[in-house]
């Protein structure tokens, strides 16, 4: 091995250790037969994986997180796809400002977004926590939706739409018959990205929690404060497996990485 490739090998190796290492630690910790969150594990068993499903608050917060991820992402797409279309196709005044505004949830720290929503939306107006969470998640996903869909629109020539108009389509018809089928992959990619982002969201959701309304990651934090047992590690494993599974399937069937 040449020195340069030794260095490259070392860097790649360390990167993998730091990326995958924690994951392995958590898996092993979750497989422990003991009663404490510890590494290395104290014997092997699946009892903590089974325990996860018996915790009532996990079940509730899982459905809340699922609901936010699915419907928050759908809402972001319903707003984001037309916005992306307008930005990509029309010479609208202030397109740069719109793009910046749409991207701001990426730039502004989530802690501040969460605090601001709590202080200025939920407290003074009596907006429910659930509604505020939904709004916040949709807004957080919007930048991904706009960005991913815009880039797949830019790969579709404008004259293809014009050809559809001449062949008998209305404007709306040409969108559904010609544009949509060609950006479907981009929309699905945006959906997956949005779903994962929402599901793993912590800082914003931290402020937006109340009695019986918590997203899963926040519920896991709260659980750990009172009960320091390995069921959190087991749950983390299950979530990681779910995320990896989604991305793997998306890559397999869509070539997901083309769009992100």
């Amino acid at each position: 091995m040449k020195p340069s490739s030794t260095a490259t090998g070392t860097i790649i190796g360390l990167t993998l250790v730091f990326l995958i290492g924690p994951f392995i630690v958590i898996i092993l910790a979750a497989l422990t037969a003991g009663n404490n969150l510890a590494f290395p594990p104290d014997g092997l068993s699946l009892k903590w994986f089974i325990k996860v499903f018996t915790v009532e608050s996990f079940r509730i917060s899982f459905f809340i997180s699922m609901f936010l991820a699915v419907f928050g992402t759908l809402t972001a797409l319903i707003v984001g796809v037309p916005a992306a279309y307008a930005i990509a196709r029309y010479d609208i005044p202030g397109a740069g400002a719109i793009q910046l505004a749409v991207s701001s949830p990426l730039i502004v720290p989530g802690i501040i977004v969460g605090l601001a929503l709590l202080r200025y939306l939920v407290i003074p107006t009596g907006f429910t926590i659930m509604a505020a969470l939904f709004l916040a998640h949709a807004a957080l996903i919007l930048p991904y939706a706009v960005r991913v869909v815009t880039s797949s629109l830019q790969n579709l020539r404008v004259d293809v739409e014009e050809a559809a108009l001449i062949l008998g389509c209305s404007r709306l018809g040409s969108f559904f018959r010609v544009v949509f089928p060609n950006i479907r992959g981009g929309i699905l990619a945006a959906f997956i990205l949005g779903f994962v982002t929402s599901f793993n969201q912590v800082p914003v959701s931290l402020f937006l929690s109340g009695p019986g309304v918590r997203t899963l990651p926040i519920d896991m934090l709260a659980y750990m404060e009172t009960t320091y047992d390995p069921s959190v590690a087991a749950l983390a494993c299950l979530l990681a497996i779910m995320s990896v599974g989604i991305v793997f399937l998306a890559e397999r069937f869509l070539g997901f990485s083309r769009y992100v």
Partner: protein
Amino acid sequence: MSDFVSVDKLTLAYGDTVAVPELSFGIGKGELIALLGPSGCGKTTTMRAIAGLMTPKSGTIRIDGRDVTRLAPSLREVGLVFQSYALFPHLTVFENVAFGLKMRKAPNIRERVMAGLESVGLRDFANRLTPDLSGGQQQRVSLARSLVVEPKVLLLDEPLSNLDARLRLEMQMVLKDIQKKTGVTMIFVTHDQSEALALADRIVLMKDGRIVQSGLAEEMYSAPRSRFAADFFGFENILPGRDGGLLAWRPTAIRLGDGPHEGTIRGMSFGGDYRTYVIDSALGEIKGSVRAGLPAFGEGEKVRFDLPEGEAVRLEAA
């Protein structure tokens, strides 16, 4: 007016920039005409306005007696073959050609699509996806897609310019054949005078959104009226005559080796049948061609030449 397509005082603008001011021309039924001109002359803009992809500021466009100026593209009964072909990438060749028929809920779609593909020689490609085809094949799919809906006017944007010499000739014959068989009125846009001459019955030469000259292809080639038209059709020597008017000669009309003028050979380009010399002289730069079989002149060599007035075309305007 009995023109099949008539454009009357058409003004087209991008924002405040007028691209075409008050353009008027007419086209007879079944004619094949070329809108010819350098880029930015307004030819493509005019074609897009006829297709309905651009709304005119003022003026009218009529097709077969009907005012279509404000009509949606889908209701104009025109076809457009885009320069980039603009095929639907998610559909097969068959589905591309069937698209317009499906939108019209036409009967016998399968037979009509197959007949359309047959006419452009792509019957065996029906189930292929369009990105897998060559440029020439894509263009023929685009042509078939426009033709199966039997448009009144077929518009073509630079139909030959993306093709190599052999495919060019083939496409030229396909288009002439379509004109003969279907009698469809065709308008095509090009910046290349040789394309216009090869294909069009009639040429409309444009500059800065205005018509410089229009007429039969042969007439345009042999009798340009202005300096711009003469220059565009290859009259590379334009000089003032004795009466103050302008005279124009093609390089082949210049006689080299003898005559009242003298100059120095500055350069030569070999064009197969001819050698064309660039000569510096008291009259300015002169371009003269000599048959390739005759003895060549060397660079820097003095040469006498003649500008025979009988071979010149007299221009009306500067």
